[in-house]
């Protein structure tokens, strides 16, 4: 996890196409400029970045299911809950399941857990649109390779 680069996932462990499910992992770094402000002397991963983590897992799931044809953009989050503090050094397990495949959009149910305890969850809606620029498509494909699952796309 590199918070300042919005690189929220370290790896993808599994994409289950039948269950429409992704499982990923990430470790919160010991140090980050983000922690300088959030908060001095009491470092916490901001809830918005936990939401981003769930959105990225959802996005890579949809990219994989859709063959990297369209870019998922976060459109809305419902019932987002941040149930426990997430701190430097935490090892996180992230999962997302597509619960609805709409026309031009999809809805996922995502969660982050630590040692079996759910620390955040949300229902996310993502729009699926053609890649607006080739550089973005190249970026997400490179990220797919870094995360170790592009071969499945």
């Amino acid at each position, binding site marked *: 996890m590199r918070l300042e680069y919005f690189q929220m996932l370290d790896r993808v462990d599994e994409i289950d196409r039948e269950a429409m499910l992704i499982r990923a992992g990430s470790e919160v770094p010991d140090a980050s400029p983000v922690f300088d402000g959030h908060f001095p002397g009491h470092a916490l991963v901001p809830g918005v970045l936990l939401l981003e983590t769930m959105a990225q897992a959802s996005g890579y799931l949809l990219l994989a299911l859709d063959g990297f044809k369209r870019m998922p953009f976060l*459109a*809305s989050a419902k019932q987002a809950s941040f149930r426990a503090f997430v701190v430097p050094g935490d090892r996180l397990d992230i999962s997302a399941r597509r619960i*609805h*495949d*709409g*026309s*031009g*959009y999809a*809805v996922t149910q995502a969660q982050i857990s630590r040692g079996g305890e759910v620390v955040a969850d949300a229902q996310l*809606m993502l*729009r699926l649109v053609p890649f607006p620029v080739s550089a973005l498509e190249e970026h997400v494909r490179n990220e797919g390779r870094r995360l170790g699952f592009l071969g499945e796309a």
Partner: protein
Amino acid sequence: MASTFETVADIIAETSDIARESINPDSHIMKDLGVDSLAFLDIAFEIDQRFNIQMPIEDWMQNVNQGGQDSAEYFVLGNLCRHIDALVAKPVAA
């Protein structure tokens, strides 16, 4: 059992905070009710789930943007309900 119109009107009222009594079969979802594209996705999600269908919104928008159809064909409520009924009646592909 509620009619398609009653169900869809209830969904719009619930998801978009629009007074139920202001919604009628002649209402255009965007032009008359002021629903924006994001709010319409919430409505579409609820309709898809409630009727167990997938409204082909992308195809509809393409028809409108390419000038093949006026947006009223899909987004005036009476017409939208007609499309929903057709999708519900459509046999599920094996």
